[in-house]
């Protein structure tokens, strides 16, 4: 049985020729516009944990800078809690999405080395911020020198308690390299004082409720301690009323904490916490996006391996000034105004 043709050969050929001509014509017409459209860059910013309020500002600032630059598609993603294995999976997923660059805040170092190296091997620009993965092939680390931050925390402990007594150390998750370095910095300072003994570290795993309970626990069980140095002070992100022992203690055992977030400032203003040593939260997003954009668009752009942030210290002396800053920072626009800073250029 002969095959029936639904369309005659000459008609098919004519149709094909017309379609090809149309396609070529459309292509020629569209070409100048395609060439003129600017290249867009997909940048993924990955915080250590999506739930830590400190990273809200990093998100806002990354979005602000992406909007300013105009040619960036920003992806803000990560693990709900500080979990390096989930973070490693996130990085692998982003490699498959062929992003142009990643800015990673490491929950832990080891699980992230292989995915970061894989990303770099596939031509993705990778930098780290806040918490580094120094053994990986990432381009640079933008953040505070964690050891130096620890030293500042230790120095403030000595400043407020004197050079005699017990200092209790508290941290977040035990595996985070930046926190381990902060602890090392605190210990390095305290080791210079023979009359100072350290206890701990104790860990609250970045769980605010656990941290609050732990702080109260420590104040009840060690009322004669000189100071508690908390290098990842999520316990102080809640309300003062959540820690009755802190209220009761009111400066007897000195409390020296990391971060200078809005929620922590009343603790200083009311005399419950003696010193806060913070970071440039706005810079976490704003400057990482700036740095990555420079690296992607300018092949001659260079940076040192550590691009350092400043380390602000808040005490009773300057807490009002900081409270004023944070008052306006409840929205993205407000925060952008309060913490406005110039983007970091190539170095």
């Amino acid at each position, binding site marked *: 049985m002969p095959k029936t043709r639904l369309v005659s050969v000459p008609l098919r050929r004519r149709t094909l020729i017309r379609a090809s001509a149309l396609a070529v014509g459309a292509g020629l017409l569209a070409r100048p516009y395609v060439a003129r459209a600017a290249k867009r860059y997909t940048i993924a910013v990955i915080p250590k944990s999506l739930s830590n309020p400190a990273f*809200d500002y990093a998100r806002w600032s990354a979005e602000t800078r992406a909007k300013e630059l105009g040619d960036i598609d920003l992806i803000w993603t990560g693990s*709900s809690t500080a979990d390096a294995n989930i973070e490693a999976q996130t990085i692998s997923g982003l490699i498959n999405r062929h992003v142009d660059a990643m800015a990673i805040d490491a929950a832990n170092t080891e699980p992230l080395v292989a995915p970061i190296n894989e990303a770099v091997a596939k031509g993705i620009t990778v930098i780290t911020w806040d918490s580094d993965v120094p053994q990986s092939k990432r381009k640079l680390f933008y953040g505070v020198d964690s050891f130096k931050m620890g030293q500042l925390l230790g120095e403030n402990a000595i400043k407020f308690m004197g050079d005699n007594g017990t200092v209790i150390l508290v941290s977040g998750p035990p595996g985070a390299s930046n926190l381990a370095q902060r602890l090392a910095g605190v210990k390095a300072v305290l080791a210079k004082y023979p009359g100072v003994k350290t206890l701990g570290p104790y*860990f609250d795993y970045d769980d605010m409720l656990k941290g609050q309970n*732990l702080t109260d626990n420590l104040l009840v069980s060690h009322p004669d301690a000189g100071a508690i140095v908390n290098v990842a002070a999520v316990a102080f992100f809640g309300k003062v009323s959540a820690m009755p*022992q802190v209220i009761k203690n009111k400066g007897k055992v000195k409390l020296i904490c990391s971060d200078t977030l809005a929620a922590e400032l009343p603790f200083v203003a009311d005399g419950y916490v003696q010193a806060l040593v913070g970071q440039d939260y706005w810079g976490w997003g704003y400057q990482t996006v700036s740095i990555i954009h420079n690296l992607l668009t300018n092949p001659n752009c260079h940076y040192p391996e550590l691009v350092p942030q400043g380390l602000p210290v808040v005490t009773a002396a300057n807490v009002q000034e900081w409270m004023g800053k944070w008052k306006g920072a409840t929205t993205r626009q407000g925060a952008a105004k309060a913490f406005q800073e110039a983007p970091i250029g190539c170095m």
Partner: protein
Amino acid sequence: MAVSTTRESRAAGLRRLLEEAVLVPWAGVLLGLIGVCIVVAAISPYFLTVDNILGNVALYFSWFAIAGFGEALVMIGGGLDLSVGSIMGLSGMVSALVLASGMPLWLALIAGLAVGAFAGAVNGFAVTRIGLNPFIATLATLGVFRGMAYGIVLGAAVTPPNNAAGKAFTALGGALGVVPVPVIVMVVLAVGMYVALAHTPFGRHVYALGGNEAATRLLGLNINRLKMILYVLSGLTAAVGGILLTARAGTALPDAAEGYELGVIAGVIIGGVSLTGGQGTIPGVLIGAALLGVINNGIVLAGLAGYWQQLIIGLVIAAAAGLDVFRQRLAYLRSG
């Protein structure tokens, strides 16, 4: 000869007493709790202070115990609820959101509890109607409910407003005199749950369901309805715990109580609730949670670095689960 007979009868009596003690689901853990308390009290003079016992130890384990009561019902009935931590976080978040939108306290509490009950009903539906294994069903909803807590606020924290309703909400996490409110709620719930489980037909049905589901069905009981009630109660108690811990913290975080399901289940198992169902008591759950609270407190009091905390708690859970297996074998041998 007479002396050795007396010794033998004494030894046999002691052995019988020990066996009886092991057979009572919570007797072993009560002894363990007393032992740990003695050790910690000997190490630190601050252990047996009112501030520490009520304000630290009891407060810390209260939300684990509260959520544990509902979890125990499900487990005694032969099920499992892995989603309690997520329900705690979601309920607290919803209550805080309702308050933040200017609504009154009673509405915030009802909303949080309703979310807990609904979440429990979803678990019950997945187990009874879809026929999913409780482990799989609640493992899935663990992610779903946690994801909802993150999604509705896009990962942000929600702080109740500083108005009358917000202050009243925060007061729920405070204390009446020296006794924290969550501890009072825990005791009231424990009494209610104990009566319901030990002295009502409902309680007998729960034990029967966990002991032998097929036989219970033959008795004419509506198995699916009973299971649904147990999961809803588990969701409700988790919601109570979640609302109280949010009130205590003063801020609702989407990751609040993340991973707490392990602490809740650990307390329940340590308290003598059998993993295979049909056994367990509310006093046992209370004691199990208390033991975890004392260990947690004791590590700090003893000045042990936090690196050891999880190891010690893990060993206690392993010992309790081992005791459960031993108890079942002993009961089996005794039954002939």
